[in-house]
């Protein structure tokens, strides 16, 4: 039986098409993936991402305990700031990719993927030295308000001065009278916020946001648009582009690994890989012949299998068929000519610079 977020009935009332996603019944679209995608690029979209999990470290030593589990460095950011990070296994593969919020050295909140909630919590509980994590996944609903109009819309509903919240920073305050965490983060490549609230207030907040944004063209957006938006940015999706066998160095996420911090789980394996050379890399490519690459399709060099497609779609903003995939290091360079095997047929593609989408 799929779980439901507090907004389930609201989605149904809006006519959403609901699908099972990581054990949750979630809206994939309300009207059209492309229309919702374009709303986010041009105005704003509102996503229910309450299925995501939260894990908290609280008390003296919370920062040190959480920091030893992730690749990025909570010690080098300020209170009120967040980092994107890898939660790695001993082999350097991703247990998950997470966003870690530093409220204070005594309070760290880690947002994890819906598909990995139970696994991540068990992993953190087992590997945390000192302060132990608390599963707070059922204590928060989360709404993502994304798009160029997001700041103006949100500002109508909150006394928090949003101009004062830089990217990857956050503040606590009320939105439409609901106590929230307001974080300037997202997964779309647009400006915007992720707002955490108590589950029992989620419907109220959702309705207030939709109403406040109607004049700006805000519309509810589903997981379909979330996926095309993130793919155009080459943001990794756990289970598609990253998983427990690929390292951050392979995934092009070396920037979330801070070598000058202390030890963290997976560090030794990453050091070995760095020494030996990274064998394969996650690249972005564009199709040069008609066809759409999809997760699991082989990537070819000539007629030889060279790698695999991890994500692909027709990008609604870039208006091209685009893909993400792993290729051997030698082929992982801009301009490399490869092919995607689509239903037994090689279809030409070229490795390109990413993100695919840039505001012009």
């Amino acid at each position, binding site marked *: 039986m799929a779980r439901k977020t507090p907004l389930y009935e609201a989605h149904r009332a809006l006519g959403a*098409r609901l699908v099972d996603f990581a054990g949750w019944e979630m809206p*994939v*679209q309300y009207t*059209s*993936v*492309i229309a919702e*995608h374009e709303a986010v690029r041009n105005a704003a979209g509102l996503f229910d991402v309450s299925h995501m999990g939260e894990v908290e470290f609280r008390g003296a030593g919370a920062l040190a305990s959480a920091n030893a589990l992730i690749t990025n460095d909570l010690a080098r950011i300020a209170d009120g700031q967040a980092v994107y990070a890898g939660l790695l296994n001993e082999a350097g593969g991703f247990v998950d990719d997470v966003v870690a919020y530093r409220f204070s050295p005594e309070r760290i909140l880690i947002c994890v993927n819906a598909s990995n909630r139970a696994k991540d919590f068990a992993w953190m509980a087992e590997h945390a030295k000192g302060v132990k994590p608390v599963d707070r996944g059922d204590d928060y609903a989360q709404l993502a308000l994304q798009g160029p109009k997001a700041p103006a819309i949100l500002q109508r509903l909150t006394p928090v001065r949003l101009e004062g919240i830089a990217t990857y920073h956050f503040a606590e305050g009320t939105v439409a009278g609901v106590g929230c965490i307001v974080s300037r983060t997202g997964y779309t490549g647009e400006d915007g916020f992720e707002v955490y609230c108590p589950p029992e207030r989620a419907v109220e907040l959702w309705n207030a946001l939709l109403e406040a944004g109607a004049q700006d063209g805000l519309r509810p957006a589903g997981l*379909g648009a979330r*996926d*095309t938006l993130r793919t155009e940015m080459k943001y990794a999706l756990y289970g598609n582009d990253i998983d427990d066998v690929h390292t951050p160095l392979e995934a092009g996420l070396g920037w979330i690994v801070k070598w000058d911090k202390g030890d963290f789980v997976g560090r030794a394996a990453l050091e070995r890989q760095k020494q030996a050379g990274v064998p394969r890399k996650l690249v972005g490519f564009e199709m040069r012949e*008609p*066809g*759409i690459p*999809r997760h699991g399709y082989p990537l070819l060099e000539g007629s030889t299998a060279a790698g695999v497609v991890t994500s692909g*779609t*027709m990008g*609604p903003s870039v208006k091209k*068929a685009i893909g993400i995939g792993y290729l051997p290091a030698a082929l992982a360079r801009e301009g490399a000519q490869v092919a995607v095997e689509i*239903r037994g047929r090689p279809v030409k593609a070229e490795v390109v610079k990413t993100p695919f989408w840039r505001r012009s």
Partner: protein
Amino acid sequence: MADNPKDLRYTKEHEWARRTGATVVVGVTAHAQEALGDVVYVDLPKVGASLVAGSSFGTVESTKAVSELFAPLGGKVVKVNQALADEPALINQDPYGKGWICEVEPSKPSELDALMDADAYAALLASAPA
């Protein structure tokens, strides 16, 4: 539920077939396009290709999903809807008209009569709610 034209024949894979003199025009139903969502790519068969009834002859893709096209009847492709290469959304906008997929010269015209009529197709949709 959109009305399915009475003059067409239908398959359980949600394709339609329309007899036009000696040839048969093939497309996907309103229900199929609705279930797919925004169509962003159509892998069309080639003119001259041989279709086998019930076999895959192309794909229709949305941003997220790939859906195979199954031939309603056997025959030779004599024309394909090239407009879909530039404007695949025609399938969403006009599935029974401008969104047609290909035109087939049937090898066994009687195969068409074995397909469902509009009433039978409506009953199929009613018995298997999306």
